[in-house]
């Protein structure tokens, strides 16, 4: 019990976070498949739907409110419980102490508490499926007044929406605990010789993401609490005077719906960097290891991470170009937004510089890392359109945006998670993941995600609004049927392949090929330990670090890699 459930061991907690994300990602993916099915075959009667939702899908045909509630839950589960949880809390917890040469995180009990808070947060969210009215339909962004006015605004806007807000507030609390723990550990628990500029870029990624979390979740929790008060205590933070919803007059006065959007996106934009920054660290490391070449421009990479983190807090307004904010501030937000393109481009150039002139080994982790590069560019450059208010005035809330953010913060981040999984699985379990299954998984997923999300850009070019439960009401949407059908079937195929991964993940625990201590011949500290590493890691004799983490193919050296603990010759 103390060992595996209420454990304070950072490695157990890391695995707990990873498994929570694994459960969540399959649930979120199942919801998306059901949504795609409904969009493509709105008339089809599906007995399973009727069984799962006897009211909202009576006779097997889904109501619009059910569609919207699935969409809301899909977004919330994926953003919070998958993309925030796996790369940061999952990998970060497991590998920060290992890569720093520490025995554990700075606050092991707080660490345990942060996981269990997140776990309760997930349970509270899932409970929304089972209450009267069902899950909320206001989207993962939960804009008021829709989210603040209560059950009169629609089914799911009663208890379902309240549970949603509670869940998010709990998640914020858990993430804040995690962030404090990460920052303290990285600043104070580095082993002898591990100066800041000798840390692996993975650790820099987790550090910057923890800093962003600290400031971003602190604001979201405020937004969540105020929303909760508007809903349950009759306050008017987000509800203005003169509201009439569903023919009921509301007594509120003085609130502003836009205030919530500011609070939400002050968190929401940095959030996408919480998601992607740890992935950037993972990819930087893997590209270096599998090219047998030092990371190109290590210092520039660190500064680029900090620029992204800082600028990320100054651009939230680009989510609000069409919301009614001042047109002058839109121009300011636009300039700052496009400026983020620079550190992102710096990273891309340096990744290319890392593999350029190397000796590329296309092992599974490397395939995912290279896939990440391709997707990061493809998903990133469409930001150029969305960051300019005039162009965004067409694309806002169309499928163009859906395609954009799924590629960059959804799929690119997921590719980094897969890269990390294939890379570290031998360390965590002592065995490799299956090579053949891994290749099938990678290639179909790579083609699949392009096949799903590139066509969405074209739907967006044709003006297709997102968050529509069906496309039958508009003439101009009928022309897009073929496109949506293609997207849906590609999504089915891509989803199916993920079960290969799931199978491999558990099957290889016992049956996978045995891996040595340092299977990829990498240099960082975790590869000095047996697999899996023992409780308390390095124990009473912490390692001493003599140089940076990416010493590959050093001229004149006997081997093509030099462990961080190897003294200079």
């Amino acid at each position, binding site marked *: 019990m103390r060992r595996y459930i209420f454990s304070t061991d950072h490695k157990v907690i890391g695995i707990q976070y990873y498994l929570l994300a694994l459960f969540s990602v399959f649930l979120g993916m199942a919801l998306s498949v059901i949504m795609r099915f409904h969009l493509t075959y709105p008339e089809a009667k599906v007995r399973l739907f009727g069984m799962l939702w006897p009211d909202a899908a009576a006779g097997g045909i889904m109501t619009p409110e059910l569609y919207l509630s699935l969409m809301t839950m899909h977004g919330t589960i994926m953003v919070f419980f998958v993309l925030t949880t796996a790369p940061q809390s999952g990998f970060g917890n497991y590998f920060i102490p290992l890569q720093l040469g520490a025995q554990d995180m700075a606050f092991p009990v707080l660490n345990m508490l942060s996981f269990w808070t997140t776990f309760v947060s997930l349970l509270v969210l899932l409970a929304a499926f089972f209450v009267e009215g069902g899950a909320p339909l206001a989207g993962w962004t939960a804009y008021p007044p*829709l989210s603040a006015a209560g059950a009169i605004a629609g089914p799911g806007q009663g208890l379902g929406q309240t549970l949603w807000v509670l869940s998010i507030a709990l998640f914020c609390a858990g993430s804040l605990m995690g962030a404090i723990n990460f920052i303290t550990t990285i600043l104070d628990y580095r082993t002898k010789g591990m100066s800041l500029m000798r840390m692996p870029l993975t650790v820099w990624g987790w550090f910057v993401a923890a800093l962003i979390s600290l400031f971003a979740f602190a604001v979201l929790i405020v937004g969540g609490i105020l929303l909760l008060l508007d809903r349950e205590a009759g306050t008017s933070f987000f509800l203005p005077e003169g*509201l009439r919803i569903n023919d009921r007059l509301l007594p509120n006065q003085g609130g502003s719906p836009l205030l919530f959007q500011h609070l939400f996106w002050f968190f929401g934009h940095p959030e996408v960097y919480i998601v992607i920054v740890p992935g950037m660290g993972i990819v930087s490391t893997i590209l270096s290891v599998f090219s047998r*070449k030092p990371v190109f421009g290590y210092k520039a990479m660190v500064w680029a991470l900090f620029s992204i983190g800082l600028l990320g807090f100054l651009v939230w307004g680009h989510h609000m170009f069409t919301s*009614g904010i001042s047109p002058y501030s839109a121009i300011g937000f636009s300039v700052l937004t496009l400026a983020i393109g620079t550190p992102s481009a710096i990273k891309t150039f340096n990744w290319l510089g890392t593999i350029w002139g190397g000796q*590329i080994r*296309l092992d599974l982790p490397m395939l995912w890392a290279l*896939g990440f590069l391709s997707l990061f560019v493809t998903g990133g*450059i469409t930001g150029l359109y969305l960051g300019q208010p005039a162009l965004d005035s067409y694309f*806002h809330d169309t499928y163009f945006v859906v395609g954009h953010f799924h590629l960059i913060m959804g799929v690119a981040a997921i590719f980094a998670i897969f890269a990390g999984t294939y890379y570290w699985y031998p360390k965590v379990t002592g065995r490799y993941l299956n090579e053949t299954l891994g290749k099938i998984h990678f290639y179909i997923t790579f083609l699949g995600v392009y096949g799903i999300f590139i066509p969405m850009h074209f739907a967006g070019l044709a003006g297709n609004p997102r968050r529509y439960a069906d496309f039958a009401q508009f003439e101009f949407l009928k022309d897009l049927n073929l496109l949506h059908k293609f997207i849906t079937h590609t999504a089915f195929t891509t989803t199916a392949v993920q079960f290969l991964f799931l199978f491999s993940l558990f099957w290889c625990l016992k049956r996978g090929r045995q891996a040595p201590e340092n299977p990829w011949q990498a240099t960082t500290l975790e590869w000095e330990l047996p697999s899996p590493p023992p409780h308390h890691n390095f124990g009473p004799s912490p390692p001493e670090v003599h140089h940076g983490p990416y010493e590959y193919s050093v001229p004149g050296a006997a081997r093509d890699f030099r462990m961080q603990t190897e003294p200079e010759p």
Partner: protein
Amino acid sequence: MLLPILILLVTIITAAGFITQRWWFPAPINEYASWFDSYFAINLILTGAIFIAAQLAFVWAILRFRNRGNPVRYSHGNNRLEIFWTIATLVLFVGAAFAGSRLWSDVHLSATPANALRVEVQGKQFAWNFRYAGVDGKFGRTKVQLINDAAGNPFGIDEADPAGNDDIMSSELRVPAGRPIELKMRSPDVLHNFFVRELRIKQDLVPGMEIPLRFRADKPGAYEIACSELCGLGHHQMRSVLVVLPPETFETWLKDKAAEK
């Protein structure tokens, strides 16, 4: 070896989609929409070049540097390169932001011409309503308490205000071609968004705010208005039509509507 081929494949197919334009913007119906399209084309060329160059660079690097026992060039980077691409991308991206702001200013920072037709727009779960000032050119006072769809008073016009007596209501947005229009947009319940593809503009309706939107439509025809901000279970059916009429036809319609009163 499969990976570079697949990257090449998705790059070609993606580029083909943007070149063939099978799924694309509808034809513009005014000068602004044409400017938008030209500016979009410039952005497309820019991002397209970056996209193709980057993907080809990945393909080339994987092919050229895959492990065949080739020697590794040991290097920790190059500061001059870092400075070069930092400045180059900063100039490029920030330059784009300033270039794009001209288009934005055109719609949102220009004064309303004196001859503009003013129309009030109300979005409500899940319908659009439009109000014209009538013969006196003045909108009558409204009260949210008086909203009554069944009685034909979706705006809640207050009968006590004589200015409201001749106000004209419509469920379609009818406008004369070629004349500047100023919409005043509001919502009594939740957020909505006014989007007409052919105009290339989009604006939220926010409870508690009255938000102006200016445009001119030159080409007569009917164009769909799609709500583009999630507003509840009927979001996908919140539809109306922008009907652009020759000016004479519009005047006739307005007179007929006034006569009905």
